[in-house]
């Protein structure tokens, strides 16, 4: 019985603490110049630091999608140029925002949780608190701002690279001609899909940043607990990203 009560009680506790933390994150910065310096550092960390892994994953994502569709369409009456069309829409609507953010939750999210957790354990956060710094704002707001700016840009790159990946996988191998692939990529374009991609990337960036920072900021104990917090940051971010993906899909395609 106690266990049954513990789950909703913990959920309410964490939700409440998360809301209070976010309230502090959005309070007025002490010194905008110091925050701006931190935002640019985080942009560099998240953006430049993740560009290689995002490109690598996206190129294979596009390549595999193109080959799979080429295989599925083999012998069907569906025109071959549909491969380009399907790869483009799959990249824009789903794979670029979702897969990129799932990967970033693993790379950037765990890094944020470990960084803040380490600062908590080494009393850096206490030291800042005693100086009078609003630590939630100073440590989390620059990460969140940087993520909200940089991750959508990474998603655009991811979508572009995935479409290129589809081209590389199908055109040189003779599955489809270059003209057909490009015709497919240009066919039936709906700008609403791009809007959906941006909405998803912003929502997912918010989730992965705030959840990871929450896990790191309130870490207690030693290195084992820090490792657990880092893992929890990735697992919870991924679950929430996939849930949000479903909700956005229902809302924006209904």
């Amino acid at each position: 019985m106690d266990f049954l009560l513990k789950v909703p009680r913990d959920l309410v506790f964490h939700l409440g603490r998360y809301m209070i933390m976010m309230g502090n994150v959005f309070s007025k910065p002490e010194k905008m110049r110091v925050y701006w310096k931190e935002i640019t550092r985080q942009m560099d960390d998240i953006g430049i630091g993740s560009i290689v892994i995002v490109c690598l994953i996206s190129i294979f994502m596009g390549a595999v999608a193109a080959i799979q569709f080429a295989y599925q369409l083999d012998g069907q009456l569906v025109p071959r140029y549909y491969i380009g069309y399907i790869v483009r829409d799959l990249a824009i609507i789903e794979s670029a925002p979702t897969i990129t953010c799932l990967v970033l939750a693993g790379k950037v999210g765990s890094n944020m949780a470990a960084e803040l957790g380490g600062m908590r354990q080494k009393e850096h956060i206490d030291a800042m608190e005693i100086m009078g710094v609003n630590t939630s704002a100073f440590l989390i707001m620059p990460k969140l701002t940087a993520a909200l700016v940089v991750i959508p840009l990474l998603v655009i790159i991811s979508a572009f690279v995935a479409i290129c990946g589809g081209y590389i996988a199908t055109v040189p191998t003779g599955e489809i001609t270059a003209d057909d692939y490009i015709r497919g990529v240009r066919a039936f374009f709906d700008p609403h899909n791009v809007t959906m991609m941006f909405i998803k990337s912003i929502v997912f960036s918010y989730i992965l940043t705030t959840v990871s920072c929450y896990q790191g900021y309130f870490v207690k104990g030693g290195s084992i607990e820090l490792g657990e917090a880092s893992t929890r940051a990735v697992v919870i971010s991924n679950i929430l990203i996939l849930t949000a993906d479903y909700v956005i899909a229902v809302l924006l395609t209904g």
Partner: protein
Amino acid sequence: MIRAENIFKSFGETEVLKDISLEFKKGHTNLIIGRSGAGKTVLLKILVGLLHPTDGSVYYDDVNFTQLDKKSVREIRMKVGMLFQGSALFDSMTVEENIRFPLDMFTNLTLKEKRKRVNECLERVNLDGSNDKFPSEISGGMQKRVGIARAIVLNPQYLFCDEPNSGLDPKTSLLIDELIRDITLENNITTIINTHDMNSVMEIGDSIALLYEGKVAWQGNKDEVLTSDNEILQGFIFASPFLQRLREAALGNQQ
């Protein structure tokens, strides 16, 4: 002056502090001593507001600190400097950047003025010329001194030190003690030191409070430590037979 009034603190079922009332005077080095687990760190964290007491109040010059809203707490904290047990220096910043951090956050000084103030503080802790070193490149004693420099950079009215001598050799410990005492006297600030270093007790203990099982077991100063009959105090300070013989010898000399 800082005053703790009837402080109680519990963690779940465990009562860590039981009715602590203490006054920490301005211009004095006020020591909180006691065995590990006596509640020293919890009391210090309550005094600086990192923990909330279960009951009781903390006053900073007649302002009830425990009742203040977040904004007012931050205003008071800008008058507070703290030296942490592990120094808590930011690893990714140089010594200069560490000390400059509070100036960057809370002042409108130019970079030149900030550097001047940083150099003054470094000079005060005998570390001039260490500006560009990273915390990992300096010794534990030097890290403590950088921690002190950072704590005093905004000219605090209250200075808190959590185990300032832990992990340091006796000679360096003495230097740190002298530095803290001198800074306290020069700036007429209220300094509270949480320690179980007996050298500190006998050298800089202007005012000493002994915590035992969450209660204040004894209060006095460094001169009264030798003569007090309090068994808990004697059992704590002169724990080994060697120290007991030293005490007896010292008392014999006094007579």
